[in-house]
């Protein structure tokens, strides 16, 4: 009877240890979730988002920080220095939305300034115009919505 109890306790302990090790291993190696698989928290057009930040960037920053947002607008420029960056905005405002693309993202077509485009990404922060080069709403890990 006593032997049986020991076997049961040992079996439970081994099972817990193995499950714990599997969990720790999978958690340690967990890759960053792809933007495609994340749920969208906010969906709005580029002009509205810029207006919100120009009105009060502190409130807007806390509202959107770390949230997945979808932005639709006319592309202001496409930069290709360190992977693609798609910029939304217009000449009437010094604020732009800069969307750095997810490293796994491959642009299958040529995107030009003036084209309408929809982006899904994570709002990472706001760069106020401290250096005299305009302020920016930063969206990272972006993908282009089909």
């Amino acid at each position, binding site marked *: 009877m006593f032997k049986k109890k020991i076997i049961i306790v040992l079996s439970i302990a081994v099972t817990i240890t193995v499950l714990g090790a599997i969990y720790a291993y999978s*958690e*340690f*190696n*967990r*890759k*960053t*979730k792809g933007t495609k698989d994340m749920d969208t928290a906010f969906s709005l057009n580029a002009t509205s988002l810029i207006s919100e930040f120009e009105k009060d960037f502190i409130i807007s920053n806390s509202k959107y*920080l*770390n949230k997945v947002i979808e932005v639709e607008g006319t592309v202001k420029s496409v*930069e290709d*220095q*360190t*992977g693609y*960056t798609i910029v939304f905005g217009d000449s009437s405002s010094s604020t732009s939305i*800069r969307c*750095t693309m997810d*490293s796994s993202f491959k642009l299958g077509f040529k995107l030009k300034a003036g084209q309408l485009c929809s982006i899904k990404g994570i709002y*990472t*922060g706001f*760069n106020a115009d*401290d*250096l*005299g*080069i305009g302020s*920016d709403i*930063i969206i*990272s*890990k972006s993908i282009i919505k089909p």
Partner: protein
Amino acid sequence: MKKTLFLFALIAFVSNVHSQEKYFTKAGKLGFDATVPKSPENIDAINKAALCVLDTKTGDIQFSCLMKGFEFERALMMEHFNENYAESDKYPKTVFKGVVTNNTSINYSKDGTYSAKVKGQMTMHGETKEVETEGKIISKSGKIQVLANFNLVFADYKIVIPQLVADKLAKTAKISVDCLLEPLKK
């Protein structure tokens, strides 16, 4: 008439040259590597949205980046980096303000690779420390590339590494800077 047009063109060219004293990028690349030597686990990240402004006349140089802009391959590392070490919600930005100390020896208007010495102050995690490093400034086709590598000691910025991961995370991170600057048009 032709002479007048030529004169106007010349004035426009000269004023354009003079206005191109400042160069900038909003897509600078900053690398972060805190891998322990000989460790099989790479602890590295990249930020592809760093700001950099260089005034070629004075040598003043500034960098700025959002801590949440660092992308790690592993989600857990990214979470620990932002929540436990960098405390990115509390201290969202890292800023470097400095000067190219040998600025007079760099001919920005002539294509070439120049050694640059940079000295300034870096503010991260609410702490400001003096940073001095050597790098390269490459002038090519009207653009300027800034390249540098330096070490960052976590303890200098009051970033505490828990004992549990002390053998996995280096006490000093290697920082790499790669920014391609374009003329700032006002």
